[in-house]
């Protein structure tokens, strides 16, 4: 092994800077899963009957399902009875009515993460944040400003109380409770999450953002996000995630559903930085997430952009169902794995409407001893005439102990559609690093520059302020991994 490779590997050995935890009294249900626990969760959240029934249906269905095994990741069996399915910071008395009433310790936690929740501290109306701490949403900013436009942006629990019709109409409409093992589990036990509704013709004036934080040691996090853009509406949404360093694995099984009606546009960006485990591969989050958008209306558009650097195991395929004629689905992804991380991620583009278009740009970067898999499905239905897909999947290897895999599945069922697929695998070249060195640039900076260049097409899809964050995150993830 050359020194460059060793330096690269050193680089990747960075530390996770969000690894601390908050000492806060919490109300956590004992580990275990049964109908009683589900009733308890539903009860704690004062949910209507129909929702409890929905959860129970999901739970009973889940009992008949088997954990999927087809994905290219390996981990010891999960004991679902050892997980605690609900944890909430203990509240004195009533739920806080405004940000001023939120426990200062929680605010401090988010402050430390760089997510100021106090509205006056947020840059003049750039981003509205809903913060989810373990199982519950602890505060949503800029609610009033948004309400003036008729936009609903609140915690899922609140939406169930305040906008039951909307929730009932759209919950499970994109990811049914029978969908897959983890989505079904989520449907049974989901604790909280964010809800967002953009009314007809409204362009959301600011970025909406959800920030997820797992704090408790043995809890799973099962949040659910539901985002509905009514006819002609548009919104850009971002989620960020971190968790303390623990030496046991924690389960995160979330569901995100997006509905876009006629002419609506939704841009959903994720910067995922769950604790990836230590350099020996101990601990870390199992991120088993179902994300799906439905372009239900004509000319609608859903765009997923994700930058994944965290989690011990990532298993997710943000997808688009292109039902409406002329609808557009996009997926831009950077997945970086280091040390013993494993990622099996990609997308599904299901073309059903006529003249539907989809674009897939996936950039996988593997360092250390990690395994990075792209898995994507492009399916063009019989009636989806004149449809098009363009896919580009590039992998970059850093060092010689990691792996990159690509599994594209293509299914085209008519003759007027076009599918294009391009793939490449490159090893971060010692020639490239030497070239930078020879111009005075240190190896660490050189690698960061090369990797950022590799990811450029994806970064430019991110909202400006997050693009900067994503680049920094990638730099941190690369420290000690340059390989």
């Amino acid at each position, binding site marked *: 092994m050359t020194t*460059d490779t060793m330096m690269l590997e050193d680089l990747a050995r960075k530390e996770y800077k969000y690894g601390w935890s908050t000492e806060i009294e919490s109300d956590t249900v004992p580990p275990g899963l049964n109908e009683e626990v589900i009733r308890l969760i539903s009860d704690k959240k004062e949910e209507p009957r129909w929702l409890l029934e929905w959860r129970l249906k999901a739970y009973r269905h889940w009992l008949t399902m088997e954990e999927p095994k087809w994905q290219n990741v390996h981990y010891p069996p999960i004991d679902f009875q050892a997980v605690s399915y609900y944890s909430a910071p203990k509240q004195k008395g009533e739920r806080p009515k405004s940000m001023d009433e939120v426990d200062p310790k929680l605010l401090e936690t988010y402050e430390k993460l760089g997510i100021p929740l106090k509205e006056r501290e947020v840059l003049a109306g750039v981003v509205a944040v809903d913060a989810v701490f373990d199982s519950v949403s602890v505060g949503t900013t800029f609610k009033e400003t948004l309400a003036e436009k008729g936009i609903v942006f609140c915690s899922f629990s609140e939406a169930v109380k305040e906008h039951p019709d909307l929730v009932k109409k759209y919950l499970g409409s994109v990811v049914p409770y029978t969908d897959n093992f983890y989505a079904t589990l989520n449907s049974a036990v989901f604790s909280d999450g964010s809800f967002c509704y953009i009314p007809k013709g409204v362009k959301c004036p600011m970025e909406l953002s959800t920030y997820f934080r797992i704090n408790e040691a043995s809890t799973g996090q099962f949040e659910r996000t539901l985002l509905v853009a009514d006819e002609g509406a548009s919104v850009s949404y971002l989620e960020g995630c971190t968790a303390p360093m623990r030496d046991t694995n924690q389960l995160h099984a979330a569901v995100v559903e997006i509905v876009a009606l006629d002419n609506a546009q939704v841009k959903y960006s994720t910067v995922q930085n769950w604790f990836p485990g230590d350099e020996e591969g101990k601990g870390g989050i199992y991120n088993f997430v179902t994300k799906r958008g439905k372009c239900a209306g004509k000319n609608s558009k859903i765009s997923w952009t994700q930058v994944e650097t965290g989690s011990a195991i990532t298993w997710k395929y943000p997808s688009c169902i292109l039902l409406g004629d002329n609808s557009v689905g996009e997926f831009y992804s950077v997945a970086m794995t280091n040390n013993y991380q494993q990622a099996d991620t990609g997308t599904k583009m299901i073309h059903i409407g006529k003249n539907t278009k989809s674009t897939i740009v996936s950039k996988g970067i593997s360092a250390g001893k990690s395994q990075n898999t792209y898995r994507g499905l492009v399916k063009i239905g019989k009636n989806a005439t004149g449809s098009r897909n363009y896919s580009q999947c590039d992998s970059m290897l850093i060092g010689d102990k990691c792996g990159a895999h690509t599994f594209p599945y293509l299914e085209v069922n008519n003759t007027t559609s076009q599918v294009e697929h391009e793939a490449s695998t490159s090893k971060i*070249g010692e020639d490239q690093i030497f*070239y930078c*060195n020879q111009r*005075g640039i*240190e190896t660490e900076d050189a690698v960061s*520059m090369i990797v950022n260049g590799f990811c450029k097409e994806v970064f430019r899809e991110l909202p400006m302020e997050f693009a900067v964050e994503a680049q920094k995150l990638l730099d941190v993830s690369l420290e000690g991994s340059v390989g």
Partner: protein
Amino acid sequence: MAIIEIKNLHANVEGNEILKGIDLTVNAGETHAIMGPNGSGKSTLASVLAGREEYEITEGQILYNGKDLLEMDPDVRACEGIFLAFQYPVEIPGVNNSYFLRTAVNAIRKHHGEDEIDPGEFLSLREKMKLVHMDDRFLSRSINEGFSGGEKKRNEIFQMLVLDPTLAVLDETDSGLDIDALKIVAEGVNEFRRDPSKAAIVVTHYQRLLNYIVPDFVHVLVDGKIVQSGGKELALELESKGYGWIEREPASVSA
């Protein structure tokens, strides 16, 4: 004043000895041409000066401005003023030339304890691209991506002019250039040489380049050793007689 002094340099790659005892001193204001047949070790010498990893130095010493060059990492050598114009400049997709160059300029400034370059100053540095007949569009393109052979070489010389090294090492910069491109590249190098505090080592297989970059000294490298040294006329003699002539009459002449 000697900028670089190479003493009894031996270097291996994958266990094979490529350089078998090189002695060479280059003073400020001088241009030395290194010529030789394919496989004689010319490019190895250039790479060793720049600090490429694959080469193992088994014996000898290199002093650069009186300091032990072999102790320095490649990026430190660059910051200290050694510039290698690559024979095959690499492509770096997604990283634009302008950003790359600014990063390099700032890395070198940082090394010397200076502040980052201000945008105005950088803009005026960029003007140097006119010397190698490149236009602004190059700056926003990814490094060498989709560049023709000639464009890549001109870009190397442009980088050299911007980074303003003390010692320029040109590794077969003429390979793959047509006559017009060759003249442009030579103009850039001559611009650099005008400063008497600088020095250049020009590695080339053919005499052609030396019509435009006229060297003060010519050294002939055969099988890892300098077998003959002389003035610029030695290059012409080589051109007419071929390398076979040297190989048949080893080290009969010395400078």
